[in-house]
């Protein structure tokens, strides 16, 4: 009877060990799957932070373009400000090709004064 009990305990111990091993292997496998996807997800997440918002062009005359950046004033804000303060200059500015407008915006971002910007717009428009 005592031998049988010892044998049963031993058997139970072996089965328990086996179950723990299976569980560990499963945990390890799950860990591997998660670890496999997570670095990719974190990589695409950090990469997404580098993307500028692509401004919509809804029924406008021109197609898409990257309009604003995450830091500093956006081109949209700059244009809004110019329109509000110097409507005349803005009218000429809107007639410039996109490339010239982007260049002017870059100068504005670079710290050029609004007077310099206005002068540049007129120069670009006349020449």
């Amino acid at each position, binding site marked *: 009877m005592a031998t049988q009990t010892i044998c049963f305990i031993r058997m139970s111990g072996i089965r328990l060990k086996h179950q723990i091993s299976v569980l560990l292997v499963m945990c390890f496998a799950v860990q591997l799957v998660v670890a496999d996807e997570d670095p990719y997800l974190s990589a695409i997440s950090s990469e997404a932070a580098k993307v500028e918002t692509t401004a919509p062009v809804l029924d406008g005359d021109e*197609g898409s373009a990257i309009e604003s950046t995450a830091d500093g004033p956006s081109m949209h804000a700059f244009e809004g400000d110019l329109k509000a303060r110097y409507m005349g200059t803005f009218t000429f500015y809107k007639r410039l090709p996109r490339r010239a407008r982007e260049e002017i915006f870059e100068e504005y971002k670079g710290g050029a004064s609004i007077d310099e910007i206005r002068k540049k717009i007129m120069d670009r428009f006349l020449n």
Partner: protein
Amino acid sequence: MKRLYCQIVTVFFTMLSIQAIADEQAVDSKIAVGLSGEKPYIHVIHEGRSVKVQRVQDPDYELKGYYAKTARKCPPFCLQPMQVVSSVATIGEVEVFEFMETKLRDNKGLLIDARTSEWYERGTIPGSINIPFTTLSKDGTAENDAALAIFGGKPRGEVGALSLKLEEMGLMDSDDKTEKWDFSNAKEIILWCNGPECGQSPRAIKGLLKVGYPANKIFYYRGGMQLWQLWGLTTVVPGE
């Protein structure tokens, strides 16, 4: 008197129509860089609004910013093969335009931005809906089931063993059906992500194939956002 009034009204509306056609033609003649062939632009419904999809008309326009980059760390941002799997067709921009004008307009197809939401929020291709690859590559989850239902898949519920056996033997129609889903009326879908270096839409496609979505109803637009922007095509920011 009444007839004269009718004639005047008719003449007025005719003139208005002629004017509208003339205006349209004048706008079309201004388009120097058309979409394809004789198509100057197309209109696509995005979030309930009509969006004109066309190319940048400025011949000096150059792509700047993130999508102008030629290199990203590989891995994980490695160049993808032309085909995800041989059974799924890879398409280009012209096919996307055609799809927008036909399947998408007639609600028989969907344009899927398979990128994670943080990418989608920064700009997308007009007419696209965002269903991230993370959703499409996880079989059996509620989100995955919901996405498949959006695509036109129907859950089959309990299917008897006999029916399954007969389908397996080819004695019952089993086309586009799995044990769990009936994809007979599933829509044609185009999946895209950031471009040739992006693995998000290929993962989504593999996920869809795994649940039995018919390969002939899946299309891979490999060019993605990068090539869409390279050609100066219209993009939209969701919610704006």
